[in-house]
């Protein structure tokens, strides 16, 4: 019985999330739309200027290592934290 109620609640929560997000998606700019704001505001600068400014033809690398290099430092720190986290719980004594 409790499982039944739990299942119904889970489905209700998921349906709510799905419904709200589907409504959001329906109102989004169309997929692959050339005029979406995402292609208009910041990205053109990366496309036109990145080779001059960073000397790197690969724009993803230019963004990753130069324009948003601080994010990559954070990313490195995340995986470093993951590694240290794994170290920290290995070799526990068995009770």
């Amino acid at each position, binding site marked *: 019985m409790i499982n039944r109620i739990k299942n119904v609640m889970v489905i209700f929560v998921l349906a709510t*999330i*799905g419904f709200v997000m*589907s409504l959001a998606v*329906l109102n989004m700019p169309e997929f692959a739309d050339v005029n979406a704001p995402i292609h208009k505001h910041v990205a053109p600068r990366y496309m036109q200027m990145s080779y001059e400014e960073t000397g790197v033809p690969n724009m*993803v690398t230019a*963004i990753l290592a130069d324009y948003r290099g601080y994010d990559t430092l954070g*990313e490195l720190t995340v995986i470093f934290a*993951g590694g240290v986290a794994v170290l920290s719980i290995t070799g*526990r004594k068995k009770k």
Partner: protein
Amino acid sequence: MIELLPPNLPYFASIALLLIGLYAMITKRNLIKKIMGLNIFSTSVLLFLIAMGYREGGAPPIEVEGVTHYVNPLPHALVLTGIVVALALTSFALILIINIYKEHKTLDSEKLTKL
């Protein structure tokens, strides 16, 4: 044929993945399945981001002479970060699960709550 599909199909697909992952995380009793759910769940975001950056007729974002329209490179950088975060989380969660199994001799979340 492809014109019959709704235009925002990739976004819907990512939401479907999100719901599947979330469902698995909440209802599955095996901890490993929960982590699989978590992986599906975080992959849904990556699909969403990468679909978002695509533009019609866009070339891969590597400077080539004569090409003016590339797909948006920023989401690619974000996705890379997302993948790395998911890697760190998954590896930590798996080693946690191994240790939980050693300590409690079960991976059933309902039995584990009773402990």
